[in-house]
């Protein structure tokens, strides 16, 4: 069993964090920086407390988009990776597509999606998240299904195992760590995507919209409250994905899919 990190181990980030906040607070006070320019940490904290309900509502909107997109993207990614494994020629087609999706600012198609759906719909943002999560999961799980060690394959062939037996007893268990790697990448990515998608138009609910509107009215401290909410949302998705991996795999060893 791993011990929780001791205080000795976590003091550097704590110290850096505290010092950073203290310096920030001091600079704002000493130079009398106005709130519309840069609010002090204490001002942000109080703005956060005052606007808790609104921030929470915005978190729910963006979070729901991220969650729905994440779940659907994972399910679709897994499903299609089986298809890819069965028809390996499709692999060659999807790889360049996956690389291109990663290379271009794909979020920019959101305005088009906004036109395709009724006004006020959150579906465009969810579609965006699904698209991004899907490719991450697809690439990783397909790799896990394909890249079984040579020794394992020879072993199964020496048993005259059928393709289905090989799939169930070897490929799928082999792919599970890859699935969790993909989920750990995709979970925070889904929050970021849901957030960024809000910048491209569509209904004005959610964290991104709230930040933009508060920024435009120079209510920077309130804006920061939403920024804090967005960070907490992203971190919670990340932590949840790590917890999910720990809870479902009884193995406490290094994930072979993570190099």
């Amino acid at each position: 069993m791993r011990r929780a990190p001791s205080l000795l181990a976590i003091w550097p980030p704590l110290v850096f964090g505290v010092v950073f906040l203290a310096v920030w607070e001091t600079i704002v006070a000493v130079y009398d920086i106005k709130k519309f320019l840069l609010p002090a940490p204490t001002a942000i904290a109080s703005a956060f407390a005052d606007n808790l309900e609104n921030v929470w509502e915005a978190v729910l909107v963006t979070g729901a988009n991220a969650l729905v997109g994440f779940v659907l993207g994972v399910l679709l990614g897994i499903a299609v990776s089986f298809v890819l494994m069965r028809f390996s020629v499709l692999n060659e087609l999807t790889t360049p597509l996956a690389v291109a999706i990663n290379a271009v600012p794909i979020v920019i198609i959101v305005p088009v999606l906004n036109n395709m759906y009724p006004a006020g719909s959150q579906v465009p943002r969810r579609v965006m998240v699904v698209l991004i999560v899907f490719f991450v999961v697809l690439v990783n799980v397909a790799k896990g299904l394909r890249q079984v060690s040579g020794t394992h394959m020879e072993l199964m062939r020496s048993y005259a195992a059928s393709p289905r037996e090989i799939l169930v007893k070897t490929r799928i268990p082999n792919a599970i760590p890859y699935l969790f790697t993909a989920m750990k990448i995709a979970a925070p990515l889904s929050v970021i995507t849901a957030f960024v998608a809000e910048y491209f138009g569509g209904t004005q609910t959610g964290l991104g919209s709230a930040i933009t509107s508060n920024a435009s009215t120079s209510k920077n401290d309130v804006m920061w409250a939403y920024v804090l909410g967005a960070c907490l949302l992203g971190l919670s998705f990340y932590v949840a994905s790590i917890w999910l991996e720990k809870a479902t795999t009884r193995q406490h060893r290094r994930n072979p899919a993570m190099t």
Partner: protein
Amino acid sequence: MTEHAVAINGASMVFNPGSVGQLEALRDIDLDIAAGDFVSLIGPSGCGKSTLLRLIANLLSPTAGDVLVNGKSAAQARVDQDYGMAFQQSGLFDWRSVRKNIELPLELKGWDKKRRAERSAEMLELVQLSEFGDHRPWELSGGMQQRIAIARALASHPPLLLMDEPFGALDEMTREHMQSELLRICAAADTTVVFVTHSIPEAVYLSNRVVVMSPRPGQITDVIDVDLGAARDDDTREDETFYKKITEVREALRGAELGDTARGVDDR
């Protein structure tokens, strides 16, 4: 007339025939292995010993000649799971417990849960790792993992055991210990063994016949009988006959190379 455990007649193996990368791995192999034999295949890199093992295992098909295992075609023997195989990497499944790893071939044969549990317990007992049944493979040392791999290979009590340098990744002391263990296990299970190795002392210690092979193209140059008796132990390693046989095999290997510099065969 008793059937040979393995009968190879005029087997040849050519990879990529007719293309630029054509490789004649084996030419005209004739070999008969009797039931209960322990046969080692030894030779420098490229002599085709691993290829020959895979012909017996029907993981490859010969381009000429035939391979009979247990009186049947090698293909049929594979379908019938008449042999167990062990590789240089233990090839245990990380996601299964040690016990479940041993049960893998039994699952594929359709055995029910109770029968599988009984047999895996028996095999754990045989390799003396009973307390580790519920551990995960990576929690075991290299030698222990190979013992489990052997237990798995023998789980269905096959008459034939095929081994491709299973001790190659182990250190010398563990290796010698594993060799003694292997002999004990095979004697208890009365198995025929075909064993590929790089190590002359290993081949001599384990086998009653050592098949010496030469490369380019892979051929059998010599078969040396080793009469060290059935009950071999650590004292055997200091026997005079042991050293004599090692010298005999070494010289056969040198002769096989016909002036080529020896590559890949250990004198350790």
